[in-house]
């Protein structure tokens, strides 16, 4: 499978702050790659460099095998970018926004009509076709925003936290749209803080911290990086005693949200865990499947 995008040894510094350091990533055609990392890890800077909004200090980016710096404005026709904030013309209708951007790409009238019709269908926008964009809810605005990014059939679609500013139900719908795009063969590079969705949708995931990739691979590869471990969730009123015991046992604690979770040897069964914690006041114990969230909290400090 050919690479849609190859990033090699990218560096970017703002003043004394090194935002990207020897960042490398490959995205194969037709796959979804998720960039995950805490705020300030360099995700948006990377996307801005790929979209030619910023220049890298060093490193190479190839789009379909061609160096990005040799492509100039041609690259802009091949990349669809959807930023975090919906940048739309509020006094126009959804199809008028689409039409405006289609014209910027030099699409002729009949191509425009066909493409706008397709996108209005695919993104379910007909129900709001007569509503000015300024009166649409956040979820519908974001739908339109992504649709605009797809207007010119880009080789790669870049989504920067596409569900950051929408409510829960709109989020579910938007992820469904991203799934549909994947089914249609669109190559997607996305950033998100929604780990369960990233786990479900992404073919490959790169965990970023301090400007470089600390771990990348497919989900099974990421889960395998946790070694021969199982995850145990413990509820206890005697936290100090629990931590003391766990340290003695050599179990690795994980700071996942507000639960007390530990990595134990995979061979352990529930009964072994309970036996190991004997004498500590415990309310409940359960063994959970390791997910992307545990991988994330294990590698990102």
């Amino acid at each position, binding site marked *: 499978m050919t690479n849609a995008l190859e990033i090699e040894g990218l560096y970017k510094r703002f003043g004394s702050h090194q935002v990207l350091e020897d960042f490398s990533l490959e995205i194969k055609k037709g796959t979804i790659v998720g960039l995950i990392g805490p705020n300030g890890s360099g995700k948006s800077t990377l996307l*801005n460099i790929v*979209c*030619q*909004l*910023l220049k890298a200090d060093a490193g190479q980016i190839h789009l379909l095998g061609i160096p990005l710096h040799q492509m100039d*404005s041609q690259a*802009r*026709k091949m*990349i669809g*970018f959807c*930023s975090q*904030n*919906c*940048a*739309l*013309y*509020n*006094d*126009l209708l959804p199809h*008028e926004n689409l039409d*405006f*951007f289609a*014209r*910027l*790409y*030099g*699409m002729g009238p009949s191509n425009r009509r066909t493409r706008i019709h397709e996108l209005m269908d695919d993104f379910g926008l007909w129900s709001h076709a007569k509503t*000015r964009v300024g009166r649409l809810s956040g979820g519908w605005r974001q739908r339109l925003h992504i649709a*605009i990014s797809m207007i010119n059939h880009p080789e790669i679609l870049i989504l920067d936290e596409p569900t950051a500013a929408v409510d829960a139900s709109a989020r579910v719908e938007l992820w469904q749209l991203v799934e549909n795009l994947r089914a249609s063969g669109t190559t997607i590079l996305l950033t998100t803080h929604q780990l369960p969705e990233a786990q479900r949708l992404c073919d490959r995931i790169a965990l970023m911290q301090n400007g470089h990739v600390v771990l990348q691979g497919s989900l099974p590869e990421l889960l395998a990086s946790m070694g021969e471990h199982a995850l145990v969730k413990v509820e206890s009123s005697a936290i100090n005693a629990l931590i003391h015991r766990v340290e003695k046992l050599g179990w690795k604690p994980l700071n996942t949200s507000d639960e007390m979770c530990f990595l134990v040897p995979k061979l352990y069964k529930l009964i072994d865990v309970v036996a190991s914690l004997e004498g500590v006041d415990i309310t409940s114990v359960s063994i959970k499947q390791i997910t992307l969230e545990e991988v994330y909290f294990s590698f990102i400090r």
Partner: protein
Amino acid sequence: MINGQANLLLSQTLAVSHRMLLEQWRQGRGLIFWAAFPIFMMLLFGLVYSHNESMRAGLDAAAAGILIGAALFFSCLGGSVAIIAAERERGTLRRLLVSPLKPLAYFFGVVLAQLQLAALQMVMLYSVAWMIGARYHGSWWLGGFILILSVFSYVGMGFFLGIRFANKSEQVVVGLSAIGVPLLVLGGTFFPLEIMPQAMQMVAQLDPMLHMNQAFKGVAAYGLGVESLRFELIFLVLFCLFSVFLGVHSYQRLLDKESLE
């Protein structure tokens, strides 16, 4: 290749122009004020001049001054400043930045939209002016040419001022009042140049609005031709070229700056 680039430039120019006109049309209340302002100004001047038949020439000059100095000033210059501020505020500027839109196409798109609005304002204003007794005396072609030069100049200045001084919509009115209104007064929009002190008259020669006013008044109110207006026309052509350069350059600088933020 060149043909393809020219077609793209044309497509983008028309897209920007179409979008701006559509937005203007949808902003109902703003559109009413936009139309009412020059008409009210014309009616007021009509009332002032109506009591004296010998002041008919003054009314003709007032119509020309209102069109160039007031209507187009606020519509084209103010409108361009507001467009830049709005693109910044709603984040569409960054959206345009990742599209293949050329800065020149954006500028020409705004000019094209403003030219259509200027033509409409001219028709509206002169219809009212005609009803209250003012007349247009000179060549329509020459008048149209001066209007085109004025629109290009206003949009160029609007881009420059908007990019330098108006980060937010609220700053547009303040900026226009502080910079634009003194230029209007100095440009002879409301008072003839002759009643100003000598020193002020000399400073006024540097005000491009004075030359726009004098050129258009010369054609519209006094029926002058190219020969009589040679100095004003040369000044306007040069200033128009300078404004286009200033506007496109400022916009390019804005894009560079925006991409770094």
